[in-house]
């Protein structure tokens, strides 16, 4: 994806599981967003697995906001972030929607499968 972050994706029952490995900041957020929208197009749900992201800034939070906006109310999203990690910290600070957060990928996938 970029030097800073790598993207791995899998699709289960029309739910795209996108795992980001690395860091998300102002230098790579826009490119990451474009790529994610392409990959998620046509999929019913999206699980953003950010458990392997060691840093995320406001540009990363903005990216997630955009994904929610762009995909609309009929395309559910879950963002997975380790409870005490730096991503969860940034999301909490920025007041990201609590109801879209999950602590682990399994929970998130199960969540979306039920919708």
């Amino acid at each position, binding site marked *: 994806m970029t*030097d*800073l972050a790598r993207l791995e994706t899998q699709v289960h029952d029309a739910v795209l599981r996108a795992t980001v490995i690395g*860091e998300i*900041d*102002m*230098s790579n957020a826009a490119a990451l967003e474009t790529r994610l929208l392409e990959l998620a197009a046509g999929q019913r749900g999206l699980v953003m697995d950010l458990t392997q992201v060691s*840093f995320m*800034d*406001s*540009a990363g*939070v*903005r990216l997630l906001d955009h994904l929610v906006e762009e995909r609309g109310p009929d395309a559910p999203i879950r963002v997975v972030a380790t409870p*005490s990690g*730096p991503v969860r*910290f*940034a999301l*909490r*600070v*920025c007041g990201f929607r609590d109801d879209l957060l999950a602590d682990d990928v399994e929970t998130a996938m199960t969540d979306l499968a039920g919708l």
Partner: protein
Amino acid sequence: MAEVESPQEAGDHEALLEDSAEDLYEHAPCGYLSTYPDGRIARVNQTFLSWTGYDRAELLSGRRFVDLLTVGGRIYHETHYAPLLRMQGSVRAIAMDLLRADGTRMPVLVNAHIRTDAGGQPLAVRTTVFDAGDRKLYETELLAARRRAEQAAARLRVIEQVVADLAAVSRASTVCDVIASAGTSAFGAAASAVWLADDATGAYRFASASGGSGPARDLPPDTPVPKNVLLRHGEVVVVRQEDAPETFPFVTAGLGSGGGTLVLTPLAAHARTLGVLALRLPDTHDPDHDELTLLQTLGRQAGQALERARLYDAQTTVATTLQRSMLPTSLPDDPRLSLSASYRPAVDGLDVGGDWYDAFRLDPDRVAVVVGDVVGRGLNAAAAMGQLRSAIRALATADSGPALLLDRLDRFVDGVEAADTATMVYAEVDVRTGVARYACAGHPPPVLVDSAGQSSLLWEGRSAPLGAHFGVAMRPEAQVTLAPGSRLLFYTDGLVERRDAALDQCIEALAQEFSEWADRPFDGIADQVADTVLGTGRTGDDVCLLAISFNEHPTFGCSVLAELSRVAPMRSALTTWLVSEGVAGDDLHAAVLACSEAVSNAIEHGYKSDGTGVVDVVVTVTPEKLRLRVRDKGRWRPPLTAGERGRGVSLMKAVMDDVKIDRSGGTIISMARTTGQGLQP
């Protein structure tokens, strides 16, 4: 010739045929033509016949000289040549065109002279004809010679400049630079390089290069070079490059392989070859004799300069080594007091000064700090400085204090002439309380900067230089209490003496400069301040700096180039440092996040990601607080869409107790966070 009248054939023949050296006449380097006064040709030499292709019998059968001219030539002959000849008796260097037998033209120069009898009557006209084609060739040669002379003069001027430059330099490396650049500037070499002979091994080591973009520099600086037999004779060697690789592998490597002629000039002095100047001349340039002579002169001049430089370098090394050996190798190690020192020798080596610094422990809780300057230069000053430094260490006792120490030193310098009128500043710092007692003997005042960056000069406790303290019962001393995080800078006058500014202005400027370093890491600060202050307008004096920092808080500092890709490495370094300082959890996340946001903002909005601006980051950790300062010198442009970009600032405000943004000249974002209180401050 037709116009010359009174033909007197009889007897005149004798006059015409008087030449004895027949062969000389026939084959002279010019054409000879003798005519009767009526113009008919009476005699002609073989040279003229060979040039023109006429038959001798044909010309002597009544042809006139004027018949041999072109139409234009005949007109000129009638209107100018003949009247001139008649009036003056002779003409010189008249340019005409002869018609050869085959009808082609031959440009000639003609001299003519009328022979007369005793009564002044013309007997005959003797005409000398020069091939003007030759003359044109001669003129071309003349021009070429003049060009060569002009080139030689220009070269000579450069050589004169080089010799003057050589006289002014005192270091071998500079001599080599001067010579190498003369190779390209004076001799038009495509590449020019200098190697120096190594006395110990006899090998030649690369010293300097000019021109030959790239190849000349490809030779590793320390490539050993076999001593070449050809350079022993002290003569300039010229060789085609294609013939060279076998004989001169190092030279070929050093000058690149652009082809052309290699010219090797020994740099010799007293029958010793100290080095070699190698030029690669372009193909079109064959060195002439003058150039080779000039090169030899240059080589001798450079050799002498090199010898002087070697002597000079050796003496300088002694003086510098002596001085270095007298500066402390280690400073007292105490977690409550950090020290940073810098010593800069004078620009010109032999003028080693008597500046020194020292720091030592008086007792477990007190550290003594000294910076001083012995008057004079060279080995004497360095030696006196050494004695003074030892005396201070011996005389400074836990109970003496600065004033008493100076009194004792006054008595000491009475017996050490070179140490007389030395200046110094001495301070004793109590590392428990921060109380510093100090005294200045004729020395510039120390600079105090507190943790907030407020600077002041310590003007108290002043008295005259050592040994010059007459009629005063006791030297004064003063006291100042250092607040935690404050710094003191001691220095010698070389730091504040500039030709272009008054001393007090320089001291004020130094205080200002030092205060700007207040929030930067203390490690290596003496060197950095010296670099900044001495950057321009250097004097030839040596310089000493000693900075101390009392209860300094751990500080992280770095400069980030204005490219977004540079932010991640900064985050990584900052995270490592914060973890090593025991910062964890939300405090760690907050600090890294706020700092990253501030730096990204500065790069995007301050510098428009120009990749050249610099963002300075300073982070300080105290037991209760994290402080961050991010500074850029860019021009702030408001975010394009406030809602989007403003998020960075609101995020900083969310994770920090206190965020101040100062946009007076660049942007400074100062943030603080009380640690150990979780997410919400």
